[in-house]
């Protein structure tokens, strides 16, 4: 008989990977200070100091690059490093003399150091054309183009009033959880699913397909003798939930796919409660490889916010203070029908007071 296969052992225990200084000061950190862009120190009650150098990883990493990280970690910090919740890489140093050489090495290899404090940090993003079947746009490409353009705000060259979080999701599934970002770049379809009537009955359960549609745009139908479904096109708002449950209903369409831009979301409870992002620019066509209209639009938004926000005022807090009418005017974005919510709770987004500025 075979040896029983080991399963369900779970992830390795994190303690294995903690540097000694962390083990010793676990739960005993007292305060931190930002020393320069991308570099901070945490000071323990014991007086111990832990230096962190943060660099952009790009997220999509080859094993070659990871091995280089490992080498750097060995060289400067006993082999200890981590990644952040926004996919940056962080080196954990105890010797402050190692900071500058490490930073220099990272910069040399094209991994800018920064993203700490009042800065723009890495864009949380998703798969796009690199791996996902649902993508209405590419993820890595836009992210690269946008961050190339915004690098001054990552590496500390240009100061900002507060943190600004950008996220990208390549379709409405929003794996990048862009719904609560200062600026969100969201891939969108704009053409209803093209039903493949020949494969549908085989690949999909018709009742599931019908019930998948939040706007009841799908109904069963016999087409060319096939049991299939039809889409009432004017009821479709391109969520692609039908496609998720049924491969025979693709929405991907080069002519109509593109991105929308959303602003003013946040996650932290700092000052204001967490907020959803709101629609700013309904549609920008895909324009690979560098999506110049998207990088322009994002830069304009960043600059507008940077020039006008108070200290520690996130994008959404700033807009809340000045009001959306002023925002649309200052951002020079035409306000359109698309901006007005018409989903289930739409009525609650209407302006139900006379608190207006002129």
């Amino acid at each position, binding site marked *: 008989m075979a040896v029983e296969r080991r399963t369900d052992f779970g992830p390795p225990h994190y303690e294995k990977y903690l540097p000694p200084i962390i083990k010793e000061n676990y739960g005993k950190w007292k305060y931190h200070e930002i020393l320069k862009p991308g570099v901070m120190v945490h000071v323990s009650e014991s007086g111990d100091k832990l230096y962190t150098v943060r660099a952009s990883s790009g997220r999509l990493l080859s094993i070659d690059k990871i091995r280089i990280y490992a080498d750097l970690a060995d060289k400067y910090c006993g082999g200890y490093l981590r990644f952040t919740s926004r996919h940056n890489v962080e080196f954990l140093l105890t010797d402050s003399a190692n900071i500058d050489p490490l930073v220099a090495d990272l910069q040399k290899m094209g991994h800018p150091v920064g993203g700490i404090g009042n800065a723009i940090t890495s864009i949380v993003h998703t798969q796009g054309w690199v791996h996902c079947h649902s993508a209405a746009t590419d993820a890595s490409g836009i992210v690269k183009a946008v961050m190339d353009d915004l690098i001054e705000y990552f590496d500390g060259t240009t100061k900002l009033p507060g943190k600004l979080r950008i996220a990208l999701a390549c379709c*409405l599934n929003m794996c990048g959880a862009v719904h609560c970002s200062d600026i969100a770049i969201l891939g969108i379809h704009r053409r209803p699913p093209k039903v493949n009537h020949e494969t549908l009955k085989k690949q999909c359960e018709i009742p599931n397909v019908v019930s998948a549609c939040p*706007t009841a745009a799908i109904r069963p139908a016999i087409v060319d003798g096939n049991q299939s479904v039809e889409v009432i096109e004017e009821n479709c708002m391109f969520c692609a939930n039908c496609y998720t449950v049924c491969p025979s209903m693709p929405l991907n369409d080069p002519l109509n796919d593109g991105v*929308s831009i959303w602003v003013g979301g946040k996650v932290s409870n700092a000052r204001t409660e967490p907020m959803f992002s709101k*629609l700013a620019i309904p549609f920008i066509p895909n324009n690979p490889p560098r999506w110049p209209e998207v990088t322009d639009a994002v830069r304009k938004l960043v600059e507008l916010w940077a020039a006008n926000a108070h200290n520690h005022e996130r994008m959404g807090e700033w807009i809340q203070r000045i009001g959306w009418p002023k*925002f649309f005017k200052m951002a020079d974005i035409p306000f359109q029908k698309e901006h007005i919510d*018409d*989903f289930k709770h739409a009525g609650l*987004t209407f*302006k139900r007071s006379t608190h207006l*500025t002129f």
Partner: protein
Amino acid sequence: MAETTYKTPLLDELEKGAWPSFVKEIKMAAKRSPMANDLLGQLEQSYQEKIGHWKHGGIVGVMGYGGGVIGRYSDLSEKYPGVSHFHTMRINQPAGWFYTSEALRSLCDVWERHGSGLTNMHGSTGDIVFLGTRTEELEPIFEELAKLDFDIGGSGSDLRTPSCCNGMARCEWACYDTMQACYQLTQDFQDELHRPAFPYKFKFKFSGCPNDCVASIARSDMSFIGTWRDDIQMDQSEVKKYVDGGLDIQKDVIDRCPGKCMEWNGKELSIENSFCVKCMHCINVMPKALRPGKDRGCTILIGSKAPIVEGAQLSSVLVPFMKLEPPYTEIKDLIERIWDVWCEEGKNRERVGEFIQRVGLGNFLEAIEVEPVPEMVAHPRENPYVFYEEYYEDDDGEEEEEA
């Protein structure tokens, strides 16, 4: 007239106390009116039993009018014949609820001759409410009222009796002439007021400033609320007097300003007016020192209503700013476009606010030919479910119009 004198031990408890007693009023009326007397009897029974004794209303009215009368019948009419019919008449009040003693007396005289002698001054829509009469009295009442120039108000699926705050008549803050606007639109829409032809009721209310003293934003399908576009008028010396008089201007004014746009340097008040949301608070607190600006008009909002059926709504901004002045052409055109669309596509018993939510504000605006502006929303959409209306076809690359 042979009349029962009812024992009303429970109601009698409500003759006590400092507040005016409706029981006393009914008793006063009962001295002269058997209807009022039987109301007393039936009401005492309701108090005993903890239940009303009115039947579901029937349709009664005056000739040529479809509204203005609420039919009401007792379910104990044998016991209380005086209230076997007990209909309400809604009389359109004069704008601002101003009267002369003479006008009031002549109304009382009509009601003494033909009804219970009981009224509401006023109903919560604003009408003079004549409380309790018989079907056969309706026409004579109307005839006599007509002689006094008092017409009937709305009820049913029609325009309801509009009402307004006293505005320019007695308030320094009125940003447009509420009473004139209310009067004029009431006159111009008499047919809509008297002949129910809407999907459901429709109410106008006119308030001269954002204090909204007729609760228009909460209680009218179309709310006209005065406001201004330029700078708040300030008299610095009067500001100073308030402060010297003990006003904690920082805590009670500046810290409460929703625009966060005021500063007090110990001597002068300054306001960054481009951030002022015209809330009225500072003006309310210092009426001698501050006044609304001079470029005045009103914000028009749409859709408020009580909860039945889809939940209560407050009105929402439709026109951020409009001068509301004679001959009111622009606003009348707008109202008619709204009614056209709502009458065409609204469901039975669907208030305009519910209708807008069902069809979408964007679509509604298109139908009434109003451009969307960001002032209409608290914020743009949060969900990505956008009904983009056009797409390109693969073959020809041309934009195609959908929906």
